[in-house]
């Protein structure tokens, strides 16, 4: 971003406090935000989207530690792009895209960690520990078991299929929203969704979870 645009962006984001000096010419060029102001401006922009981002991180990675890691990495990246962030009309959607792209870039690393966790038997049902209970313990237990089976079945899908089915069928994303997030055309999203559901059906019928 050219220098003048940087100055405009930072001045728009908050009251000016710090000093800009050109060491080549010795000229004081203007003002931009202090670190403290940057932090406050950043928090105002991102905090409203935390729950949505955390859910997305969880759905992408499928495990708590990786979700927290991804969430953290997103915030660090976003902080470095604060000047862009202040000018974006829908920062929530932008943040989701940055998170998704980062996940794709680092997919192998997350997949290795997930595999490791599964091998240790820690992943299946990890998100189910605090499953809200009802009045009937038998029903609750049956539901928990079905969720564990679903959890295992989801881990058998490819990332592309698992992510699409979770975003659409669990989180309620529309097809167009998934296209915007992932950059994958709606037709391909539909196809992946169809295949993901069919594969889940096969697995869950085979293990007796559904009949």
């Amino acid at each position, binding site marked *: 971003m050219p220098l003048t645009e940087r100055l405009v962006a930072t001045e728009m984001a908050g009251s000016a406090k710090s000093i800009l000096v050109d060491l080549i010419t010795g000229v004081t060029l203007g003002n931009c935000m202090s670190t403290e102001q940057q932090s406050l401006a950043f928090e105002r922009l991102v905090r409203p989207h935390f729950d949505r981002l955390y859910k997305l991180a969880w759905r992408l990675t499928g495990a708590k530690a990786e979700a927290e890691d991804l969430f953290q990495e997103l915030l660090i990246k976003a902080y470095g792009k604060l000047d862009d962030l202040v000018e974006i009309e829908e920062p929530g959607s932008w943040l989701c895209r940055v998170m998704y792209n980062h996940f794709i870039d680092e997919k192998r690393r997350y997949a290795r960690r997930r595999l490791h966790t599964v091998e240790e038997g820690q992943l299946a049902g990890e998100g189910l520990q605090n499953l809200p209970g009802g009045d009937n313990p038998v029903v609750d237990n049956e539901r928990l078991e079905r969720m564990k089976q679903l959890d295992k079945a989801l881990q058998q899908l490819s990332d592309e299929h698992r992510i699409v089915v979770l975003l659409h069928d669990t989180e309620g994303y529309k097809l167009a929203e998934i296209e915007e997030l992932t950059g994958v055309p709606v037709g391909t999203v539909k196809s992946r969704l169809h295949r993901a559901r069919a594969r889940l*059906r096969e697995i869950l019928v085979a293990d007796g979870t559904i009949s």
Partner: protein
Amino acid sequence: MQNAATNRQDQEVLELLKDYPMPEADAGFYDQALVRATHEGSRRQRNKWMMTGFGAAIAATIAAWLIGGMLLNDPQLPAPEAAIPGVTIALAEPRTVNLVFASATALDSATLTVSLPDGIELDGFPGQREITWQTSLQEGKNLLPLTLVALTPAGGELLAHLEHEDRDRTFRLRVDVT
């Protein structure tokens, strides 16, 4: 019959997926993540801009050398004091000073050393009088944000020393404290 069974199974899968839970974030996780992001983000930003900005300066310096030989070391240049920019910061109040460097070309493997006067610290580097970075530099104008904290009212001169291969240049910034 088979279609009816498949449809029912599909419906069951959908119901399971809708019911698929996800735990909420731990209490305090968001706050901790924000603190880490601003701290780590600032550090990365500083390093990146440091690299970019000082690359710019080095490139500008080298461009000057190319044009005028060792122009920067020419004793005919104006006295350094005449060109020293200055800033005024308040005692004990962190203040970001952005240094701007212009570079004609990208450069790799430059070294930047910031030397601080007594009583002035770089935020995040408590007690350090001299901080050195290794960096690669990009073409164009770039910002280097330095958040300074004055611990005493003495003030002094901040030096930013750039080295690239066998060339170097020192920039000066006067820091006054009120």
